[in-house]
């Protein structure tokens, strides 16, 4: 028997209107926080899983590595911002090594990739535990407290997180659409053989794209570090949902990534308020499965697998 939660409106009938606005804005911001994180973690997956067809189960560890980078920088006296700078670099380094040592040898063996990356994920987790010791690591946020947004009061750090995520996304869009490297990536993705034909070093492009995705995931880890637990095993919490973002959104476009993140993150946040969070999580995942059945190529675009 669980006591039923009182609906927000009945708490104080005279305050219905401001409460409603407050409720809507806060829900929106909660959803945005979740969407931002999903988007950043999903971006790397969209590249490796969606475009290169590499199922990287160690992707969650990039998030972990990013968060540990912030912890490490803080623990040796650096500021959070310095740590946040180190996070994507740490992610990129691990990603680059992983691509070089393992993934590039397995592009033609997708199932082996699953096994090998899962193994790597275990090794990274245990390695972090042996290096930094048991247990969660403390990370202090750069600013404490809340910000008054007129309709509602919201934690300042979360607003920063949302802003950084949006800027990063914008940067990625520009990178892909405006730079020659972005053009290379798009060409390789469209048709690997043809890209090789016109003289693009696809091996290098793959490696850089993979590393880039790892860096973004590292950044995501750095951003969530003050907000959530920092632990060698934290990555798995983000992995499954990020995969769903990519599957639901469809591969091959930033639009799909955004659509997938909004679907998973938005639905989770809204449902969490209505029903038991465990049920909400199950429903979101089931909805994702059904969505995939109905729109096999993704909510947003028609790119095929």
């Amino acid at each position, binding site marked *: 028997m669980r006591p039923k939660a009182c609906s927000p409106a009945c708490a104080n009938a005279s305050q219905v209107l401001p409460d409603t606005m407050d409720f809507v804005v806060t829900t929106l911001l909660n959803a945005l926080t979740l969407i931002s994180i999903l988007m950043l973690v999903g971006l790397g997956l969209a590249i490796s*899983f969606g475009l290169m067809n590499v199922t990287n189960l160690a992707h969650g560890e990039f998030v972990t590595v990013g968060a540990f980078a912030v912890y490490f920088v803080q623990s040796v006296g650096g500021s959070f911002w310095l740590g946040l700078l180190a996070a994507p670099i740490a992610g990129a380094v691990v990603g680059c090594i992983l691509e070089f040592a393992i993934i590039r040898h397995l592009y033609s063996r997708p*199932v082996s990739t699953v096994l090998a990356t899962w193994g790597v994920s275990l090794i990274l987790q245990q390695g972090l535990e042996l290096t930094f010791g048991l247990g969660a690591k403390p990370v202090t946020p750069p600013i404490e407290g809340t910000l008054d947004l007129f309709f509602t009061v919201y934690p300042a750090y979360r607003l920063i997180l949302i802003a950084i995520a949006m800027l990063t996304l914008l940067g990625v869009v520009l990178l892909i659409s405006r730079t020659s490297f972005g053009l290379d990536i798009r060409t390789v993705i469209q048709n690997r053989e043809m890209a090789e034909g016109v003289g693009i070093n696809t091996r290098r492009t793959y490696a850089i794209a993979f590393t880039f995705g790892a860096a973004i995931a590292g950044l995501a880890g750095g951003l969530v570090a003050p907000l959530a637990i920092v632990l060698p095993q934290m990555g798995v919490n983000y992995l499954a949902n990020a995969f769903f973002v990519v599957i639901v959104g469809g591969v091959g476009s930033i639009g799909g990534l955004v659509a997938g993140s909004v679907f998973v993150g938005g639905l989770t946040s809204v449902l969490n308020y209505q029903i038991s969070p*465990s049920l909400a999580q199950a429903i979101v*995942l089931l909805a994702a499965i059904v969505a995939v059945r109905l729109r096999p190529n993704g909510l947003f675009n028609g790119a095929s697998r």
Partner: protein
Amino acid sequence: MIARDRNWLVIFAVCVTLAIVYPFFADGYQLTVIRDALIFGLFAASLDFFWGRTGILCFGHAAFFGIGGYIMALTTLNDAIPLGSVLGILGAIAGAAFVAAIIGYFLFFGGIRGSYFTIVTLAMGVICQQAAVSWSSVTGGDSGLIGIPPIAFDLGGLHVDLSQDLPSYIFVAAIVAVVVLALWSISRGRWGMVLTAIQDNEVRVAALGHNAPLRLLATFVLSAAIAGLAGALYVCMAGLVAPDLSGLLLSTEVIVWVAVGGRGTLLGPVLGAIAIQRAQQTISSFNPSLWPLLLGCVFVIIVFVLPDGILSIYARLKSLFNGRRPAQ
């Protein structure tokens, strides 16, 4: 092909012989250890039947193990149900098959294959474990259900009581042998050939008039049903069922067993399950924190050094003696 079949049967016969001889040298405790390992071997074989034959990796196979276990537990713990053990096992098989049929319908007919299938089934495992934890009025929550009686029934004059170590060992070993042999016969006949063809080129198979998604679905359902059977057997032997028996960790472990034992060999995964579990418990008694690290390395090594599993060592050695390259 014929030679490979003969090899398989030889190894199978050796394993059966070892299983028959083992009770003469082992005490009750050692029997229970191997008995439980065999149940997980059956579970590994069930995954191998799907993964090995279709090339599609299911990352949530423990969900079916857990579903089977919970159905068995709920059936046998309810005194109002007659023939609890028999109905429990049948229910476990049917329940796991039913869930697999629903999930599989959405996935296979939705055109989900390969890595996408892997990820969706991974989430399915997560949901199952969470459901088992949260839905405590039925599942007993995170501590699970305890006091599940051993399998015992009278059916048409046949009296079965598996509360003792030796009968339960014989019962489990017999089931594992029969199921593995049956799966092997299925997978080398028409069914297996079509599945191999689907693995090569699914569109082509469909263009020949085969309902490929249905074939895949049927394979998945059969695989899940056997996983459910394994789950039902395990909870009776252990006396309890708990949420982590349907969780991600077990799903991962079973993949290792199959990969180490040799994907697609059905027998290899059983041996892999026994070997790895014994190794895990022995190593963890010496140095607990070493185990996860070793496990990770095993994954990576298998992929690069032994992509066909330990069972392939035999073939490799043989071809080494004959001076030939191993057939791939």
